[in-house]
């Protein structure tokens, strides 16, 4: 597995302590990790395989899940678990056999409270994950808006 974004910059011992909080979870091809609207109580780190995140779109008169993001080993997903109202906003599926580490929100929070020297950089790493996704989606939204405006005035 490539260096996980969750423990980026942490000393090896601290990174190992954080990763030890994760519970291994295996997904078979096609298995759904969570669905849009589900309660979000855990953050996930991909160890191997891949996770596809999809949103439902109305296509040709029927609802269809359309993949909007794909993540590979080393990436953290499911940060809805850390942000109220703690509900997933996408559906996550493993397109192939996938191995994850599952971090329970309350366990992670208790660990950070007990070890603030690790909790602070960990929180920054999570903020970097969330902020990066936000900036990428802002740029995608602006590109689509620009095309909408261009087409409207073409």
């Amino acid at each position, binding site marked *: 597995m490539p260096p996980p974004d969750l423990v980026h910059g942490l000393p090896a011992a601290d990174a190992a302590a954080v990763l030890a909080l994760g519970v291994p979870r295996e997904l078979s091809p096609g298995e759904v990790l969570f669905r849009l609207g589900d309660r979000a109580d855990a953050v996930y780190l991909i160890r191997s395989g891949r996770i596809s995140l999809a949103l439902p779109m109305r*296509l040709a008169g029927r609802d269809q899940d359309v993949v909007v993001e794909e993540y590979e080993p080393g990436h953290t997903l499911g940060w809805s678990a850390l942000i109220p109202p703690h509900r997933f906003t996408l559906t996550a599926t493993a397109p192939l056999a996938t191995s994850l580490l599952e971090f329970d929100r309350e366990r992670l929070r208790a660990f950070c409270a007990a070890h603030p020297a690790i909790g602070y950089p960990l929180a920054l790493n999570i903020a970097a994950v969330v902020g990066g996704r936000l900036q990428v989606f802002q740029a995608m939204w602006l*590109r689509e808006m620009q095309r909408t405006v261009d087409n409207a005035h073409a």
Partner: protein
Amino acid sequence: MQLFLMVLALSLVGVLVSGVLFAAASREAQPAERAALVSPAIAAGEERFFMMRPPVSGAPVSADVLALQIERHVRLEQAAAERFHQFPSVEALRTPTLSPLAG
């Protein structure tokens, strides 16, 4: 005997006249029949399979095909947006992709 020969002669004449008329009618009908049998799609050079495949042009795209097109579009757009995220600039924000949905 004379009566028999007369009936035979008339029959031969009838057969000959019918044959001539049929040949003339066939020559006139063939091009029109051929045109009627060929569908506009085939005349336009469209590939069809036992006339069951819907014509390509103007055919509604299935939800699965549309979903694949959108997913490809999202991948290309996400890659462009990630380049902008790494090296923000107005040019990077407006870099076109090869997505046919971005037209």
